[in-house]
């Protein structure tokens, strides 16, 4: 029967080849998509209906975090995190500038990599998303009530915050390991003296369970390897955190060759409960550092920066039992822990097999001191003593593994461009599907937790080429959605993504949507420059600063005629959106501003600075279509010459405000 179907299909393919006048030589992926019967129906979310899952997909070099729906692949929102966003005024408004602050000053851009959703008891809880910035090491926390960045913490002693922002199973900590080892503390020294002198810091950041506030708790000063990916122990292995390393050769140049010489690098197993004991016992040194900690206050709608000046440092060589190395072949990338917490999957990205370590065997090997020497005082466990098994020849270049709830693992293969499904424990390959093209990471909602929701798998591909209509040399990145509910994976959908999606985290929609905030309540607005009613509008001169206190409501600004401002003044527009209705933001833009525009949500106050340079009467207007009279939502500000005697005035419909 099967062969009849296949023959029929082949005949159809041949026929269509001849009849379609060689439309375009599309590859397998498309045919596969069509083959997966009723694929369209399975990704179709009818108008007015909701997707089943949220997917938080990193924006990579865009610095932002995108929010998609699954299975539709529809983009809902791009949350500005590490990069300025002139559309929203993020990083431009007086309130959000502080979010971009670092010890290097104002940094307008970031490289966002690995979002991770907060967990309770090893299950996704939908409180926050954490995401790391690789270039200027930072971690951000995004509120899943407001879908806005609440906090950004700079990581000192780090130089490429790649091994991040993964959380422990009760969100006790979020971790940050450095991809690039550097001299610590930073100093002027020859690069060639790297070996033995550079260090790699792994940071543990404590998370307050009520507020979500991050606090740099301690760092472990590791040897000068590159630290790549990490995942927490869960269930029985809770209390441990696993980090992949590469460049255990400690090369400082031509790493593509020189860091690929060792047959095995390591997975570092860190016992953070042990670390807590050492901290309690005072076995740490306090190191002077300087890092920015930026917090956005939900009541004042304003971000502030505080400065961290010290960090507690643990030296693993002096803290027995804190860190062990598990030899893992060929520059491992992904370091993934299965839902039971027993298996630690190391994906040697230059290997043709997948290495799986056993937590139980690791504990026994530690107990029985089955060591194979040490590296900088950190015991190396015997490879055979910790190995649970190997998935033999599943593909080329394994990168990352996620899990379903039925004991299956799904690994992405960059070089052979495919996703491979295999069985935990038996290590047999169950299925393989090509992806288009060259997959990096993949995501199953909850696939990094005790409770995966193994219905869909999203492949995030590094290369797009001809998957969509061409758009010149630069094309979008591409994601592909697979249905993994059956024995065989089925390709359902291609969809484009923003930036470069390095990694993603998915969660059932019902865990978030009910908490999603609709407006900011005016009565809870504690912004120092908020005004709660139209009559409170005013314009105040303080030297060469002019402060405009303005409100917006359908469909006017108050005041909307402003005079008495002069060339050389610095104008602060403190604007409060008085609306208290869902989805009625107003925008604000003023001609020639060298800053950005503002989008102001209902009940929120935001400040934009404008420095007028020319005499004249300049318009400002609402940029976000708000109402039938949106086009009338505009005003004028008169700019007089310096030292002009035009008095400050502010009116609405000819009347001075405040009467």
């Amino acid at each position, binding site marked *: 029967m099967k062969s009849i179907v296949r023959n029929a299909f082949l005949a159809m393919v041949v026929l269509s080849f001849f009849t379609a006048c060689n439309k375009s030589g599309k590859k397998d992926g498309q045919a596969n998509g069509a083959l997966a019967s009723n694929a369209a129906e399975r990704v179709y979310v009818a108008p007015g209906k909701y997707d089943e899952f949220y997917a938080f997909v990193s924006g990579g070099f865009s610095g932002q975090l995108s929010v998609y729906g699954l299975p539709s692949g529809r983009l809902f929102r791009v949350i500005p995190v590490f990069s300025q966003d002139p559309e929203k005024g993020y990083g431009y408004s007086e309130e959000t500038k502080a979010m971009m602050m670092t010890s290097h000053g104002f940094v307008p851009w970031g490289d966002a990599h690995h979002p991770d959703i907060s967990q309770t008891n090893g299950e996704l809880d939908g409180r926050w998303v954490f995401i790391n910035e690789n270039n200027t090491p930072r971690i951000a926390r995004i509120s899943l009530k407001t879908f806005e960045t609440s906090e950004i913490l700079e990581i000192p002693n780090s130089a490429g915050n790649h091994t991040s922002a993964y959380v422990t199973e009760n969100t006790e900590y979020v971790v940050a390991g450095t991809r690039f080892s550097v001299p610590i503390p930073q100093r002027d020294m020859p690069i060639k003296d790297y070996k033995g002198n550079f260090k790699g810091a792994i940071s543990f950041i404590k998370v307050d369970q009520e507020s979500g506030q991050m606090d740099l708790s301690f760092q472990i000063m590791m040897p000068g390897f590159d630290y790549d990916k990490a995942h927490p122990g869960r269930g029985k292995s809770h209390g441990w955190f696993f980090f992949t390393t590469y460049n255990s050769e400690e090369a400082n140049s031509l790493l593509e060759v020189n860091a690929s010489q060792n047959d095995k690098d390591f997975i570092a197993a860190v016992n953070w409960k042990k670390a807590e004991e050492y901290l309690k016992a005072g076995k740490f040194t306090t190191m002077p550092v300087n890092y920015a900690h930026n917090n956005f206050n939900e009541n004042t709608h304003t971000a502030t920066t505080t400065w961290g000046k010290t960090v507690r440092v643990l030296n693993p060589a002096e803290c027995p039992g804190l860190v062990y190395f598990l030899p893992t072949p060929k520059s491992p990338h992904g370091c993934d822990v299965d839902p039971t917490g027993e298996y630690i999957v190391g994906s040697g990205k230059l290997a043709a097999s997948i290495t799986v370590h056993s937590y139980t065997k690791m504990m026994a090997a530690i107990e029985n001191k089955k060591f194979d020497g040490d590296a900088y005082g950190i015991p190396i466990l015997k490879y055979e003593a910790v190995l649970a098994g190997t998935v033999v020849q599943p593909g080329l270049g394994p990168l990352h593994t996620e899990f379903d709830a039925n004991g299956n693992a799904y690994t992405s293969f960059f070089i052979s461009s495919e996703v491979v499904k295999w069985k935990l424990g038996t290590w047999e390959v169950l299925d393989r599907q090509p992806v288009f093209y060259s997959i990096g990471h993949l995501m199953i909602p909850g696939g990094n937790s005790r409770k995966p929701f193994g219905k869909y798998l999203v492949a995030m591909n590094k290369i797009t080429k001809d998957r969509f209509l061409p758009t010149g040399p630069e094309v979008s990145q591409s994601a592909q959605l697979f249905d993994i509910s059956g024995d065989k994976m089925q390709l359902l959908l291609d969809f484009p993504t923003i930036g470069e999606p390095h990694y993603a985290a998915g969660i059932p929609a019902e865990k978030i949507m009910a908490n999603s905030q609709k407006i900011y309540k005016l009565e809870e607005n504690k912004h120092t420059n908020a005004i709660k009613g139209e009559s409170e509008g005013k314009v105040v001169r303080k030297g060469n600063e002019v402060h405009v206190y303005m409100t917006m*409501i*359908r469909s006017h600004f108050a005041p909307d005629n402003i005079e008495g401002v002069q060339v050389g003044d610095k104008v602060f527009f403190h604007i409060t959106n008085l*609306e*208290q*209705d869902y989805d009625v933001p107003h925008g604000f833009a003023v001609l020639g501003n060298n800053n950005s525009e503002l989008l102001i949500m209902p009940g929120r106050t935001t400040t934009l600075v404008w420095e007028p340079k020319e005499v004249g009467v300049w318009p400002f207007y609402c940029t976000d279509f708000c109402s*039938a009279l949106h086009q*009338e939502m505009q005003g004028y500000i008169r700019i007089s010459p310096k030292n002009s005697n035009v008095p400050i005035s502010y009116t609405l419909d000819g009347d001075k405000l405040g009467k």
Partner: protein
Amino acid sequence: MKKSKIMMLVGSALLLLLFVFPLWNITLEAPQYPQPIGMNIFITKIVDANPNDIQNINLMNHYVGMKPIPTEMTEFKIFPKVIIGMVILGLLIGFKAHYQWYLVWFILMLILGIAGMYDFYLWEYTYGHDLNAKAAIKFLNPDGSPLDYQPPLFGTELILNFKARSYPRTGAYLLFLGMALTLIAFFIGHKESKK
């Protein structure tokens, strides 16, 4: 105690619940308001059906020149006094008076109720007709007269893109029940007196 007496007392005392429950509700539905917006009308105040509804109704209505929904009204002062008065009167009658007075109370309450409804109609009329001459949007009836935006006294009506629903709420139903009880009390009292 006689059955009729109890019913008279309970019936008139039920009016006190008008201080707790809304008398009436007007809800506006439109496609762009997936959650309809509305107001609950009490004898002492008009409040949001859902948070901020009245602000949002006012915002919408100002385009056609309608005045904001009042927070102060003479009725808010008079209605409570009338209701308290009627409760006291009802209780006095219940305790002291002959059953025939039950009917007097009922008819008096009926007249007051109708007067209240008429007053409500008048307010609605003004609310829907007294438009700002400078309104941004002015619609006309086919005969050229200005369109009015008066919500229905009772029932559902289409006003431009909005479906306006105007229906009694718990308070009104309790009022009806209370009045019905006093009327029944009269008939039962009549029966009891024949025994």
